[in-house]
């Protein structure tokens, strides 16, 4: 920035604050990978589940979700492990970001268990949790497309009241495109633009 200590006037002070805070926020935005990974996996699992259920009429169609976890979990952990080495010090916002998604994961498994025990479709409950996690992430990263994605997930959850279980799978895949994939690609585009 400078070798000598430069004394600022108020206008310059505001500029430095704005520029540095923008820079700091941008460095928290490199999370596009997880949105893209899980977005594509959930969309693929929804469509596969729908296809197996309606076309092949196989009652054990829900097993496709197991495939999603088998592929997704190691890929996500591997990415985090590699990424962690580059990140010398985890920052506070990053820590909260991680905790939100950990809480989401635990809540989702509890919700799925409860729905299965009570013979309910877990999809609307998963979508409510997805909406909440995306909303908090979007707020932490100050990234509007994620807030809009959260709205899409909540809207899809509400629409499940009027849909059959099979149709709910399609509603979920649309919510994933709007809530995970679109913001994920926009996050990556923002990061790429910054590195140019």
């Amino acid at each position, binding site marked *: *920035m*400078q*070798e*000598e*200590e*430069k*004394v*600022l*006037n*108020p206008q*310059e*002070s*505001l500029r*430095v*604050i704005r*520029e*540095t*805070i923008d*820079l*700091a*926020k941008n*460095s*928290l935005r490199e999370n596009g990978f997880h949105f893209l990974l899980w977005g594509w996996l959930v969309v693929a699992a929804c469509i596969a589940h729908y296809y197996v259920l309606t076309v092949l009429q196989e009652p054990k169609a829900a097993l496709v979700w197991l495939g999603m976890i088998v592929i997704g979990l190691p890929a996500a952990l591997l990415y985090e492990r590699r990424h962690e080495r580059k990140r*010398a*010090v985890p*920052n*506070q*916002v*990053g820590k909260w970001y991680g905790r939100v998604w950990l809480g989401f994961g635990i809540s989702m498994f509890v919700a799925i268990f409860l729905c299965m025990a009570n013979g309910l479709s877990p999809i609307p409950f998963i979508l409510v949790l997805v909406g909440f996690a995306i909303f908090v992430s979007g707020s932490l990263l100050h990234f509007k497309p994620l807030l809009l994605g959260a709205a899409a997930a909540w809207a899809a959850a509400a629409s499940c009241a009027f849909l059959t279980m099979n149709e709910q799978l399609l509603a979920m895949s649309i919510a994933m495109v709007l809530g995970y994939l679109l913001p994920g690609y926009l996050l990556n585009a923002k990061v790429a633009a910054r590195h140019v």
Partner: protein
Amino acid sequence: MYKELNPILLSQLRLAIMSYLMVVQEADFNTLKAKTDASSGNLSIQIAKLQESGYVEVIKTYKNNYPLTVCKITADGTEAFEAFYRALKEYFGGPDTGK
């Protein structure tokens, strides 16, 4: 002329360090160096001044057997930054100036 503004934060590099730490709370020396585009010597001097003022805490530690210097904003630092920002907004005469 700008007497009401905290002179410690009226330095470009010190203000950049504090602004960055306001968002991320803590950062290692190399990250701060990259983000502020400062030289190592100047960065060390300004971090030391912020530490003397009680605005940042400097933690010397190790990561993978390499020394690591971590700077963390303190409660006094956060308060000073917020007061500085409020004073700037008052200076420009509007609550929306910061947005």
